[in-house]
C-alpha cells in the first residue's frame, strides 16, 4: 500500500470506495497468443469466407432461448450506478448489433426495456425493484450470487446517487448510503437455489433461460453447483471485473483472474453439455473475446469497455465546471463512478450531468465498438481456420508466460510444457 493510500485511510477512518476494476497487474489474455494457420492448418479468407458468430443460450429448458448475433453481451450495470441515458444507450447499441444487455441492482427501467431487443433481468440479493411484471417482460433471468469485483460482498450505492427516481425504484429513503445484502433473502445453499430457479421458471411459464452469475473464486465447485441447481447459463466474472462502487480492498484482493477462471469453469461444465458459459472481467479487445471462446466460453460480457466506448474517461469535451479535476482525477485515470459526479453523464443521477450524454450518439459509438471487436474475433478465428468463432479451442493458443500457461493450461510458447501437467 502506498503512503498516499495510508493517508487516505487516516483521513477517512473507513475503507476507500471506488468504481472500476482491479488495477494491479495480474495474468490476462494478453499473456496468450494464437497459433494461427500455416502449413499444418488452413486459414479462411477474411473477406469472403463466412465465420459464424451466432450464439444460442438456454435452448435446453427455455421455450424462447436467447439468440445473439455476436458472442458479446453487455453486462449488468444498474440504473442508479448508471444514468438513464447511459442505460438507454447500452440497450440501443446492443439491439443494433443483435446482442443482449442486462439490468442491474435496482430493477428495470422502461427506457432500457424499450431500447433493448434482448434484455436480461437480474435477480440480486437486494431484490431492489424486482417484480413479477418486469420478470415476465424479460428475455432471460440472471440470478446474481456475486461479482468479480466483490465476490462475497453486497452492492452499494452512495447517497449522492440515490436521487428520487432511483430511491423510489429501490424502496429506499432518498440520499442514504445504500448497503445491500450479500446473501439472497429466501435461499442459502445450492439445494435451495434449485427450488428458487424453478420458482422463477414457474413465474415465467418456463419461457426464458435462467443464468446464474458468480464472482470467480472457487470456480470449479461453484460452477458445478450452479449447473446442478439448474442454470441454463453460468456467468463467471473474474477479479478484474468492474463495479460502480466497491471497497478498494475488495476490488484488488479477492477472486481469481478471468484467465484462470475460464478454464476452470469450462472444465466444470464438461459433464453439463446443455449449460452455456459466459465469461466477463477485463474483456476489452477482439483478441480477449477470441481467447475466452477458445478456452471454453460460449460468450463474453463487457462492462467497463462498453462505458469507455460510451464516453467514460473521454477527453473530447471541455466541460468547464464539474470535470475530472473536481473528482481529484484526470481523464484516462477516472474510477470515480461512486461519487455521482461523472463528468460525461454516464455514472451519475444529476440531471445536469446526464444531459451531457446523448444516448443516440453514445449508442452509435458502443455499437461501432461491438462491431469492431466482433470483426477482430472473427478475423482471428478465420486465421485459425475456423468457420465459427465457437470452433476456437485451447489447441489454438500458447502462453507467453509460465503463469499464464499454468492458469490457462495451454503450453508455454515454443514448448510442449503445461506447468503442473
Amino acid at each position, binding site marked *: 500500500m502506498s503512503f498516499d493510500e495510508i493517508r487516505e485511510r487516516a483521513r477517512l477512518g473507513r475503507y476507500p470506495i471506488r468504481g472500476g476494476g482491479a488495477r494491479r497487474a495480474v495474468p490476462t489474455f494478453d499473456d496468450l497468443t494464437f497459433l494461427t494457420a500455416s502449413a499444418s492448418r488452413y486459414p479462411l479468407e477474411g473477406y469472403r469466407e463466412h465465420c459464424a458468430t451466432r450464439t444460442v443460450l438456454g435452448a435446453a429448458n427455455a421455450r424462447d432461448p436467447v439468440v445473439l448475433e455476436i458472442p458479446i453481451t453487455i453486462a449488468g450495470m444498474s440504473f442508479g450506478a448508471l444514468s438513464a441515458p447511459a442505460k438507454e444507450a447500452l440497450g440501443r447499441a446492443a439491439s443494433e448489433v443483435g446482442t443482449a444487455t442486462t439490468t442491474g441492482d435496482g430493477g428495470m427501467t422502461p427506457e432500457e426495456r424499450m431500447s433493448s431487443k434482448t434484455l436480461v433481468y437480474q435477480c440480486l440479493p437486494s431484490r431492489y425493484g424486482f417484480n*413479477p411484471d418486469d420478470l415476465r417482460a424479460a428475455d432471460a433471468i440472471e440470478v446474481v450470487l456475486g461479482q468479480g469485483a466483490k465476490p462475497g460482498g453486497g452492492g452499494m450505492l*452512495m447517497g449522492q446517487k440515490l436521487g428520487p427516481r432511483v430511491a423510489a425504484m429501490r424502496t429506499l429513503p432518498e440520499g442514504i*448510503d445504500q448497503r445491500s445484502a450479500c446473501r439472497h*433473502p429466501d435461499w442459502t445453499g445450492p439445494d435451495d437455489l434449485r427450488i428458487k430457479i424453478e*420458482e422463477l421458471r414457474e413465474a415465467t411459464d418456463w419461457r426464458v433461460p435462467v443464468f446464474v452469475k458468480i464472482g470467480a473464486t472457487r470456480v470449479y465447485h461453484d460452477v458445478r453447483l450452479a449447473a446442478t441447481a439448474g442454470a441454463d447459463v453460468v456467468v463467471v466474472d473474474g477479479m478484474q471485473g468492474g463495479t460502480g462502487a466497491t471497497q478498494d480492498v475488495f476490488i484488488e484482493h479477492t477472486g481469481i483472474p478471468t484467465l484462470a477462471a475460464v478454464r476452470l469453469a469450462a472444465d466444470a461444465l464438461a459433464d453439463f453439455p446443455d449449460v452455456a458459459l459466459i465469461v466477463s472481467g477485463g474483456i476489452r479487445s477482439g483478441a480477449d473475446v477470441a481467447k475466452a471462446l477458445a478456452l471454453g466460453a460460449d460468450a463474453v460480457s463487457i462492462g467497463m469497455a462498453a462505458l469507455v466506448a460510451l464516453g467514460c474517461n473521454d477527453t473530447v469535451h471541455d466541460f468547464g465546471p464539474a470535470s475530472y479535476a473536481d473528482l481529484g482525477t484526470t481523464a484516462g485515470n477516472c474510477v470515480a463512478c461512486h461519487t455521482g459526479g461523472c463528468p460525461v453523464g454516464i455514472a451519475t443521477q444529476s440531471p445536469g450531468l446526464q444531459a451531457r450524454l446523448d444516448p443516440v450518439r453514445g449508442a452509435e459509438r458502443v455499437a461501432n465498438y461491438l462491431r469492431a471487436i466482433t470483426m477482430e474475433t472473427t478475423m482471428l478465428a478465420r486465421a485459425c481456420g475456423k468457420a465459427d468463432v465457437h470452433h476456437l479451442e485451447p489447441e489454438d493458443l500458447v502462453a507467453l508466460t509460465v503463469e499464464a500457461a499454468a492458469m490457462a493450461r495451454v503450453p508455454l510458447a515454443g514448448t510442449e510444457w503445461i506447468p503442473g501437467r
Partner: protein
Amino acid sequence: MDIDLSTTTVRTANATLRALPPGATARLTNPAGRHNLAVGLTEEITVEIDGTAGYYVGGLSKNATVLVHGTTGWGAGENLMSGLIRVDGDASQSLAASAHGGTIVVRGDASLRAGISLKGATVLVAGNVGDHCGFMAQAGTILVGGDAGRGLGDSLYEAVIYVAGRIKDLGADARVEELAESDVELVARLAKQHGFDHIDPENVTRVASARQLYHWGTP
C-alpha cells in the same frame, strides 16, 4: 375446481391456476410439501391448499388469495405484490421475503428472518417469530402476536415492527420507539381484521430504524 397434486405436476397445476379467470376458486389437494405452489399468479382468484406447502408458496404473485390449510416451507409469499397469503399453521424461514405489497398472515409461528428485506407488504404472525425478523426491511409493517427472537429488525430501513410479546434482543440500528395513536389504531385494525384477538394494541412494542447506518460513507 380441484387439482390433485398426487396426480398432477406442479407445473401443470400452476399453469391451470394462471389460466383461471378473475373470481374463480381452486383447491389443491395432496400438496405433500411440494415447492412453488401457486407461484406467479396474476388474477383475483382464490386458491386453497389442503395441507403442507413447500418453498415459495404464493411467491411472485399479485391480486390472488392463497389460503394454506397447513404449514409452509421457506419464503411463503416471497416478493408478493398484492393480494393475500394466509397460512393456518406455522411458516418456515424467510416468510414474505422482499414482499412489495399485499398481506401475509400466519396463524401459527414463523421461523427465522420473517419479513426479511420487506418492501411494503403487511406481515402478521399470530405466534412467535425466530431470529432476525425484519432484517433489512425497507418498508411495510410486521405485526408479531407472540415473542420475537434475537436481532429483531437488524439493519432496518423504514419498515415498522410491532411485537405483542417479549423481544429477545434488537439487531443493529433497530430501536424501540414510543407508540403513537396512529400505531395503536393500525395494530387494532390489523388484529381485528385477521382475528388476532390476543393482541392488545395498546401494549405492543414498536421497533423502527434508529437511522444511524444511513450515512456511513458520504464524506
